[in-house]
C-alpha cells in the first residue's frame, strides 16, 4: 500500500530522513515513535506530499509520488490525515467541515454528503454536535470531528500525527477508542503517538525513529520485550516510567 525506497530528505543542510526503506501493507496499523525532532512528522507528511523528498521514491497505492503525471490532489483524496492541532475550519460547523471535501473533491451531492456526514458524527460518538462550531467543542470532540472529516472521503489510508498530544488526559481515550474501532474495521493506518498502551493493543507494527533513521521495525510483542537497539531501550525506559 505504501512503499519508501531509499528516501532521503533535507531541510536546507539538515538531513531529516536518511535512506528510509519501508513497506506497509493494506490493513496494517503502524505506530511510529521516537524522540522529538527525529523526523516522524516529516516521514508521514511525505506520504501525501505535504513535504517533498530530494531522492528515492515513494509509492502509494501503486502510484509513484514523484511521477511526472501523478495527480497529487487525486492521491491526497485517498489519504486521510489527522493533525495534532485538529485543524478544523473555524468558520464552518462540524457537519460543514465534514461535507466540504466530499462535495468539492468527490463531487458528491449535498444530500448524500450530509447523510454520510451525520452517520460519521454518530460513529465518532457526537451525533448531537452537528451544528456546533469548532471553538464550541472540547479538544476531544474536535479531534473526533477531524477524524470523521477525514473518513468522509472514504480514504484507503489514514495518517495520524500525534492525534492525542494536544488533549487533556481525560479526553485521550475517547479519541483512541475511535481509532481502535477504525483499526478493527481494517483501515490501513500510520499513527505517530507516544500512547504505548494503544501501540501495544492495536498496532501490528511499531517503528522507532531517531535522527532521521528507522532504528526499529518490530511487532509490538518484540518491540516491548526485546528491543534490539540501545536507544530504543533508553527511549522506552523514559516513556514507560511516566
Amino acid at each position, binding site marked *: 500500500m505504501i512503499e519508501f525506497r531509499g528516501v532521503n530528505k533535507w531541510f536546507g543542510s539538515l538531513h531529516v530522513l536518511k535512506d528510509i526503506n519501508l513497506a506497509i501493507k493494506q490493513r496494517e496499523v503502524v505506530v511510529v515513535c521516537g524522540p522529538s525532532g527525529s523526523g516522524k512528522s516529516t516521514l508521514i507528511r511525505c506520504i501525501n506530499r*505535504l513535504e517533498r523528498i530530494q531522492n528515492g521514491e515513494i509509492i502509494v497505492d501503486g502510484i509513484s509520488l514523484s511521477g511526472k503525471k501523478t495527480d497529487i*490532489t487525486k492521491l*491526497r483524496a485517498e489519504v*486521510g490525515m489527522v493533525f495534532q492541532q485538529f*485543524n478544523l475550519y473555524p468558520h464552518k460547523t462540524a457537519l460543514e467541515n465534514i461535507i466540504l471535501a466530499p462535495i*468539492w*473533491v*468527490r463531487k458528491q451531492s449535498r444530500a448524500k454528503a450530509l447523510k454520510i456526514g451525520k452517520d460519521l458524527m454518530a460513529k465518532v460518538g457526537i451525533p448531537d454536535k452537528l451544528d456546533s462550531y469548532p471553538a*464550541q467543542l472540547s479538544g476531544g470532540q474536535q479531534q473526533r470531528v477531524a477524524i470523521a472529516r477525514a473518513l468522509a472521503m472514504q480514504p484507503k489510508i489514514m495518517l495520524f500525527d500525534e492525534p492525542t498530544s494536544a488533549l487533556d488526559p481525560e479526553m485521550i481515550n475517547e479519541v483512541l477508542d475511535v481509532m481502535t474501532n477504525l483499526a478493527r474495521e481494517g483501515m490501513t493506518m500510520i499513527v505517530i503517538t507516544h500512547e504505548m498502551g494503544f501501540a501495544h493493543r492495536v498496532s501490528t507494527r511499531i517503528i522507532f525513529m531517531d535522527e532521521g533513521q528507522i532504528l526499529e521495525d518490530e511487532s509490538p510483542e518484540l518491540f516491548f520485550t526485546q528491543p534490539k537497539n540501545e536507544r530504543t531501550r533508553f527511549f522506552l525506559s523514559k516513556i514507560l516510567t511516566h
Partner: protein
Amino acid sequence: MFGLFGLSYEFRWSVLWVDPHLTWLLNGLSTTLRLAAISWIIAVLLGIIFGAMRTVSFRPAHAIATVYVEFFRNVPLLVWLFFWYFGAPEVFPEFLKQWFIRHGIEFWSGVAAISIYHGSRLAEVIRSGIQAIPKTQLEAGLSSGLSVIETYRLILIPVALRLIVPPATNESLNLLKNTSLAMTIGVAELTFAARQIETYTAKAVEALTAAALIYLVLCLTISMIMNKIERKYAIPGLIARGTGAEH
C-alpha cells in the same frame, strides 16, 4: 453680528436648497457614491487576488503581487489620477479610448486610479489576514484533496475576511474620502459640487459644511454597516472583536 475683525460674513444656508444648487449637490452625492461603490468593488477584488498571491509559495505569483502592491501604494493617489486621466488614455487602443470618451473619461479614469491604488492597500490588509491563519489550515485543505486555489477560496480567504473587518473598514472609509480628489480631473462629485456652489454664491462656509456633513454621514453609515457585518459573520465561539462578550 459677525463684525469681528471688520468682517461681516452673512450666513445664508438657504443657498443649499435652492435650485440649481440642490441639484448640483445631489448629483455630486450620486457621483461620489457611484465612484466609491464601483471603485470599492474592484479594489476588494484586486485586494483579495493580489493579497492571496502574496502568501503563496509559487514564486512568480508572489513576485507579480509584490510588484503590484509596492508600485501602486507608493505613489500618491493624486499622481495616479493624473496618470489615468492625462497619460493612460493616450496609449490605449483607439476603440477603448473612444469608449471611455463616450462614457465619461473623467469618471472612469477616477475609477481606475482609486480602485487600483486602494486595491494595492487592501491587498496588504488581506495578506496580513491570511498570514494570521495557521499554515496548518492550508495543509488540512490540501490533505483532503482540495487544490491550492480551492483551499484559498473555501477556507483561507473566508476566514481572513472575517479577521480583517476593522482594518478593511478603515481602508474603505479612506477610499470614500479619497474620491474627493477626483474633482481635480473634473469629476463632478460632491466636493466639486460644493466648490461650484461656492463659486456661484460666494457662500464657501455653507457649501463646504454641507459637503463635510454629507461625508460624515456616509462614513458613519459605512462604519455601522461594517460593524453589523462583523457581528453577523463573527466565528461563533471565538471572541468577537469589539464585543468582548464571550470568553
